């Protein structure tokens, strides 16, 4: 059993990403009685973020602030996190399976000479045995994995493990650790913001995705409007990306992103197996397509056969009215 669990939080735009809180809940699942130690790397004042991790269930939090941690680099974060791991000697480590988590955790696992279970969507505890459920073949199947040797080290997919309720009265120690972060061989010259503003596709609760049926980049506009009224993000099928209606960063499928929102609205998407692999584990699926034979209807909870250019504006209207 893991007595001390390190939760590596993740800061984006000066706020903790939700998956940081989900990771605290995951740590508690692995061992309800273990000590949960949060870790936040960044630059500037991190104490309020540390306090937030405590309110979400961390027992105490360590922050590492350094100008070389302003932007994430594997080397910078690697040095900071390794210094904390060496000092704390945790029995388990958990982090979100995000761009940063995917980049950093294999490096740490290699340094620590340990296994790593990536992208867990559920954790099952049976006595001393902890099983991690993770999708394989882009969600066409699942596997249960266990750690057989060494540290319990895993990452969790955003949006799958519910965070604990925030308790503003909860208190815990938030301490700063000084780490000298130097000799970084990869330098971030610039960050170009291209992602849809606001909601990140991998963490979105609602996704409105368009396919070839949307017919043009112009045709995606109503989809963006619909996503906005729903507080969600826009995604796309490979067909739509190949046809240059939108950027590849929006692609959902076996190549591209795998998503599991609460609500997935597939607009003008026929439902190729590669696309289904990326979204079929969404909680509720709505399909809008003019072809009643489209495969997407076989996995949709609700289907509308019709012209998306009629349906989507009506849907925007109806949802706006509701709110």
């Amino acid at each position, binding site marked *: 059993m893991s007595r001390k669990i390190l939760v590596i939080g993740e800061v984006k735009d000066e706020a903790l990403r939700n998956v940081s809180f989900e990771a605290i809940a995951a740590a508690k699942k692995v061992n309800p009685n273990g000590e949960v130690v949060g870790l936040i790397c960044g630059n500037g004042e991190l104490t309020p973020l540390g306090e937030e991790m405590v309110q979400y269930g961390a027992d105490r939090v360590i922050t590492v602030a350094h100008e070389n941690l302003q932007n994430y680099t*594997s080397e910078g974060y*690697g040095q900071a996190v390794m210094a904390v791991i060496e000092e704390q000697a945790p029995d388990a480590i958990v982090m979100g399976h995000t761009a940063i988590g*995917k*980049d950093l955790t*294999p490096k740490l696992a*290699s340094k620590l000479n*340990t*296994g*790593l279970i990536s*992208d867990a969507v559920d954790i099952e505890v049976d006595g001393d045995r902890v*099983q991690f459920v993770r*999708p*394989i*073949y882009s*969600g*066409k*199947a*699942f*596997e*249960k*994995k*266990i*750690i*057989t*040797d060494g540290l319990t080290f895993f990452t969790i997919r955003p949006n799958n493990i519910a965070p604990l309720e925030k308790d503003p009265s909860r208190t815990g120690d938030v301490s700063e650790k000084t780490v000298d972060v130097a000799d970084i*061989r*990869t*330098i*971030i*010259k*610039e*960050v*170009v*913001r*291209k*992602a849809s503003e606001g909601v990140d*596709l991998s963490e979105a609760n609602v996704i409105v995705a368009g396919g070839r049926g949307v017919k043009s980049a112009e045709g995606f506009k109503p989809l963006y409007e619909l996503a906005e009224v729903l507080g969600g993000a826009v995604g796309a099928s490979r067909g739509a990306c190949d046809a240059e209606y939108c950027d590849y*960063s*929006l*692609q959902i499928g076996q*190549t591209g992103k795998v998503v599991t929102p*609460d*609500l997935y609205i597939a607009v003008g998407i026929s439902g190729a*197996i590669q696309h289904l692999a990326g979204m079929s584990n969404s909680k*509720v*699926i*709505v*399909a809008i397509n003019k072809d*009643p034979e489209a495969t997407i*209807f076989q996995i*949709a*909870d*609700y*289907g*509308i056969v019709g*012209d998306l250019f009629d*349906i989507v504006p009506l*849907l925007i209207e*109806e949802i706006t009215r*509701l709110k």
Partner: protein
Amino acid sequence: MDIYVLLKRTFDTEEKINISNGQIEDDSAEFIINPYDEYAVEEAINQRDEHGGEVTVVTIGDEDSEKQLRTALAMGADKAVLINTEDDLEDGDQFTTAKILEAFFADKEVDLILAGNVAIDEASGQVGPRLAEALDMAYVTTITDLKIDGETITIEKDVEGDVEIVETALPVLVTCQQGLNEPRYPSLPGIMKAKKKPLEELEIDDLDLDEDDVAAKTKTVDVFLPPEKEAGKMLEGDPKQQVQELVSLLKTEAKVL
């Protein structure tokens, strides 16, 4: 430049997954080069054509993996290496793979290693960064552009839709993201030539490793398919009625609004 590509043989993306006796059936499946590794092969060939040098593709697998290596050679890679673990290893994990590759690269001169950012089967995305760390090389994952200008390398890296411009130097390991290039199809002359290109086969003994050195740290204890979705509800009526019913169902039945 000495360029290496890490390649994995995976199920074709068209394949449905079937399970029998707790194992994924692979008897009748079609196999391909992991799509993200194809970007790596294409990029390696392009960089070699621009800067000179040699491209070696490396895979860990069994005899069947030779086909995917030949495809990479037909695309334009110069040499291939198959590290055949069929007789030595039952189950491996990402720790195993990275350890084997680390041993393989121990005596190699390397300028650039390219890999896919993830394999579409097990999808851990660990091997690239693990190997880079073990070789003490800088690495950049999910790249969508790579420019080498003398000592300086400029990379565009996809970060959940945003683009980071990263500067680094050789040697470096990169993992490839969709958008980096358009992988070519092997040409007929390419396929003919590939038959004569060198394909070296190694076993872990040849790398001074034994089973214990690479023993997995994790184990798969079960494999299962997601529950079949029940057929959904098709909404009837004119568009206005369909939409009203949908919104009402999303609110009251599905409770997602």
